[in-house]
């Protein structure tokens, strides 16, 4: 068995050493941050310090509501925002899509770009991903925010994939984040709120916006992960260019090739070979990739993201996702390409 090669960083990325150290320190300070005694106040001080550092690392001037993750942050936003109706991006991750009752969707273009309606109704809450988790396509949320605000509507940006990698859309009203996509622990995320009066409070912790005992050690890990250096992103951009040249040379097709995409995420179609067969072959070779986002990969239903882009069910079922992160190496790409070529030439029925 060769060493494991992990190219599924968009599903979750390994804990950064800085986050690990910070959490170990947090474990030693286990008091309840809401307790009034000295032990509780010490835990509170660490929690509030982490909150401040999270805001500073993200350049965010508004409030930070800590949640159990991005799904929770989006649930708080959708449940509490003072909005009359909701419009979700066609390619938004399931957390934004599966609403009760199913929200109307925004239109999308073939390159994966979201299209805002010509007439925006005041009081609408737009829920749009900054970076799509399957294709890596980046939406121009700051310019969207201008149009949305001009019409008296609100923007909720799902920045689970982009936070720590791209500047956040600072003009957004609400931003949902997850720590484990950027090298922090699973189990914590945040809702960034430009102005708390945009939300109706429910009571309990987090200024009444998210009840439950605060997980301070996870907050320390989240802050440390955001403060870690991002030098690796430059290398990843270079490696992906090489990866995509190799995929195309071997007969592969790149999803949303000409759209602006985050350097860490790429989706590729291998004509004639199902994604399921590819995943098994890659896994046997010690390479972890995925078909679509992890939460739906167990269910094997066709990706809604690709169908929104006008891809047929057949082509969609041949697409895999390759995502890089802070501990990726150039050698991972070489190993992936070698395996891609082996599968493409060995399995294709031509």
């Amino acid at each position, binding site marked *: 068995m060769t060493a494991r090669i992990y190219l599924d960083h968009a599903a979750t990325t390994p804990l950064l050493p800085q986050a690990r150290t910070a959490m170990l320190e947090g474990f030693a300070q286990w008091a309840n941050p*809401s307790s*009034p005694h000295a032990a509780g106040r010490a835990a509170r001080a660490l929690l509030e310090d982490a909150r401040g550092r999270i805001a500073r690392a993200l350049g965010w001037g508004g409030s930070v509501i800590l949640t159990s993750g991005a799904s929770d942050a989006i649930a708080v936003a959708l449940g509490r925002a003072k909005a009359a109706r909701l419009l979700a991006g066609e390619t938004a991750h399931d957390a934004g899509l599966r609403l009760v009752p199913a929200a109307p969707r925004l239109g999308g273009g073939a390159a994966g770009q979201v299209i805002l309606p010509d007439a925006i109704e005041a009081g609408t809450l737009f829920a749009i991903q900054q970076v799509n988790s399957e294709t890596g396509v980046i939406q121009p949320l700051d310019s969207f925010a201008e149009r949305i605000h001009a019409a008296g509507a609100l923007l909720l940006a799902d920045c689970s994939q982009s936070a720590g990698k791209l500047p956040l859309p600072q003009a957004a009203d609400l931003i949902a984040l997850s720590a484990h996509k950027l090298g922090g622990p699973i*189990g914590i995320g945040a809702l960034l709120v430009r102005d708390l009066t945009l939300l109706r409070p429910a009571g*309990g912790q987090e200024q009444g916006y998210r009840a439950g005992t605060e997980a301070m050690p996870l907050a320390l890990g989240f802050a440390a992960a955001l403060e870690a250096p991002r030098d690796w992103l430059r290398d990843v951009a270079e490696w992906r260019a090489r990866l995509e040249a190799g995929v195309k040379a071997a007969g592969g097709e790149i999803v949303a090739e000409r759209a602006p995409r985050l350097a860490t995420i790429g989706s590729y179609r291998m004509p004639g070979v199902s994604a399921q067969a590819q995943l098994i072959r890659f896994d046997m070779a010690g390479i972890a990739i995925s078909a679509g986002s992890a939460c739906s990969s167990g269910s094997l239903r066709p990706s809604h993201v690709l169908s929104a882009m006008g891809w047929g069910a057949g082509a969609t079922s041949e697409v895999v996702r390759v995502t890089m992160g802070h501990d990726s190496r150039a050698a991972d790409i070489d190993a992936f390409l070698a395996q891609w070529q082996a599968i493409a030439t060995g399995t294709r029925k031509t």
Partner: protein
Amino acid sequence: MIYLDYQATTALAPEVAAAMVAAMDHYGNPNSAHRLGRIAAADVELARERIMAALGKSGGRLIFTSGATEALNIAITGAAHISSPQRRRVITLASEHHAVLDTVVALRHDGFEPVILPVDRDGLVDLDIAAAAIDERAALLAVMQVNNEIGVVQPIDALIDIARASGVTVVCDAVQGFGKLPTPNGDLVAITAHKMHGPKGVGALWLRDGIDLPQLMHGGGQEQGIRPGTLSPMLCAGFGVAAQLAGDRREMDLAHVEALWARALHLFADWEINGSMQARYHGNLNIRQPGIDAARLISDVRGVAVSLGSACASGSGKPSHVLKAIGLSDSEARSSIRMGFGRYSTMDEIEEAASLINAAAEWQKVVA
């Protein structure tokens, strides 16, 4: 620091910390189909089995959540919404935790009628009152096994029998009792890791077979569609080991708590005890003395961590709703302190804490 606030949260057990550090390296997403995902999923499933075993459950399902507050929200709101349209009453007790009370009251917005049953001076519900209120009009009964402020143990088996007779779903808040007392036989049971020497940020909801709850939070369909969001193998592993330890050490932990309780009763003999002396978990002592300013006492006795009531309500400045519910006046409630002890408390700590607290109480009377 002498820590006597075990109902607020508990220290991470060293065995739990070790399991969490080991799981930190299993970085796959438990929902991913590849090998690293399956390793992470194995952590989660092993933890699920360990918690089921500690609950004494062989059937039903266990859904991981971010904690008890979330588990209770899912259970109460979900159970109300799946009940038949004739059942519009949601019943709970006046002494419940805010995670239950506020959720029950919020159901008013969805057309339900919250019914808050009183408790007596001992903190216990009168079974005749309960039987009169729990009937075919009720969607659910939400009740706590061990009270988080005064440690009293409700007659939960009798309450469940009453509810079952009328087909009423029972949601049990077993947060304080899990690992210590037998699991109540409710339809839905909420627990959390950090009250039993596990990590903060993970809890669980056990569901009886045949109960299917609607999704409250929407997302990637994890946890059988009931609770979306990526699960943390690290937090789940920590919870699993905490539950297993509690099961393995149950007799030892309870004997230790019993010895501390006996000593504490003696040391605090000058204080009145809030809540029943008979139906009580002995790792909690909620006491008062006339004329004492408990908030001041807590800040005077700096080396001892005790509290006024639940940690979440501590900042509010309002007297505890639980102490009010058992009929204490505002001034009696404001002269009450809550102590909690357990596995890692020592006899010396109880002695020293009692001497510091008693001295501070005496001092208040002298300078009053």
